[in-house]
């Protein structure tokens, strides 16, 4: 079957990508400051919502109403995460401040 051979041809490359990305992820995350674990979670959540494009692919390959409905729900859910994930990360990160500089300290007193 054509379909089967195609998938098995791609498998080694996909496995390689999976293994390397996992190792890369572990190394990158290990070095994230603990200060930032909360915004990190909202960021990785937004990144993994790239499953949005999986829903797009399913939408493109079918005309069946039931499947289109499932894909549309998928798009809506994933896009909610994209929007709220990136916006919340930005909002949290804006709250992190260093020590106020001299002028700000004077203004406070």
């Amino acid at each position, binding site marked *: 079957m054509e379909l089967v051979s195609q998938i098995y041809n791609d498998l080694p490359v996909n496995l390689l990508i*999976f293994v390397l990305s996992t190792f890369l992820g572990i190394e*990158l995350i290990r070095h994230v400051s603990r200060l930032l674990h909360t*915004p990190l979670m909202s960021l990785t959540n937004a990144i993994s919502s790239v499953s949005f*494009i999986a829903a797009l692919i*399913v939408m493109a390959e079918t005309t069946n109403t039931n499947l289109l409905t499932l894909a549309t729900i998928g798009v809506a859910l994933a896009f909610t995460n*994209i929007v709220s994930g990136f916006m919340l990360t930005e909002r949290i990160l804006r709250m992190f401040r260093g020590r106020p500089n001299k002028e700000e300290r004077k203004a406070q007193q």
Partner: protein
Amino acid sequence: MNDLIVLYLYAAAALFFALGLKLMSEVRTARYGNWSAIVGMVISIFATLAAFEIHRVDLLVLAVIVGTIVGTPIALKVPMTAVPQRTAMSHAFGSLAVALIGAAEYYHDAPNVDPFTMAVLSGEMILGFLTFTGSSVAFLKLQALIPGRPFVYPGRVVISLVNLGLAIAFAVYLVLNPSRSFALPALAALSLLFGFLLVMAIGGADMPTVIAILNSFAGMSAAGLGFVLDNKILIVAGSLDGSSGLVLAIIMSRAMNRSFINILFGAVGGAKEVDERGATEHRTVQGYSVDDAATVLSNARKVVFAPGYGMATSQSQHVLKELADVLQARGIDVKYAIHPVAGRMPGHMNVLLAEANVPYDQLYEMERINPLFPETDVAVVVGANDVTNPAARTKPGSPLYGMPILDVDKAKTVIFIKRSLGAGFSGVENELFYNENTMMVFGDAKQVLTELIAALKTK
């Protein structure tokens, strides 16, 4: 568009995602990290739109509008105390999306699904569906819509394992007979039930680890979908998310000195544990007034605050910052000690204190602050309990034994602000209450802190 160009664009997107996580490693560059990931996302979406022709653009636009309408207020309005809930909810959304897309892909391809694809699809759907209900329960618990204590019943672990085993059995059946589509709803229902029962049996204070584990599951199921659709960027993004959740879960479980298995199936907390072998000695606790505490604070040179989840529930982070300002105006050095599992998700305390305008260079991780306690004059514990219990160091029989704690007891004086003498989440009494250098100040954290500020102004 040429398939090859799409692949190059996906490669660029992968680079931006990885760069985003790299920049996220420190506060100075973190916002660039977010923007880098946004660029990666935009590239991925446009490359896909260019490569695949969408017939029902109306549905796409509708879904995107719904996503924007739902997502924007969540991001802009959610208070920092509620970020754990919103994170649980986003894991629920993300995993449901992946599970539903997997189901749609199965029905589209069936019965021409090869065994490998079917195996990955089944695994992806099991993870997706169980993460959906698991995260939904976590959301309900964190939002206090249902009780946070573990829901335990006889034979819990056996029932859970049989449940999961049946889901896997249906998955194997589908791999062998991909045309028997009736097995898919069964697999979905069993996975949904498993996720529900799993998280129902986990207590509120274990949520930091649970959220991280569910984060990992959501990412892994997205990566699985990438294999099924042969979509490289989905594999990259999913595995980055999956490994991120895994690393955070490991950090959290180490900080509690517990294994994943113990956290997932141990049902710790809430269930009244028998006190250690009938503690016969009756010990008394000396309660102090706010005024006493203010006097001690006014004579200190170095003060460390140790906040916990109680600070979040009483919303007292802003008052705590005010107290810090008053102390600093008197020339007293102030630091904050952050235990890795304080709060309800990884990094929760840092975000709450950042919201209250505490400069992040005053926030000290456990490993950095512990050597400083012996030279600290006053340690103030606000809304924390188990993470300060010296029994973790000294009592081999205690359930807390071996857990890394904040060594507040090594400070010259400990001011412990607490509502009552109740035990902490673990059900273990805090040894600290009975130490000679501990001043218990009873009352609501916010009120006590407010009174402390007023009392300090008179001294």
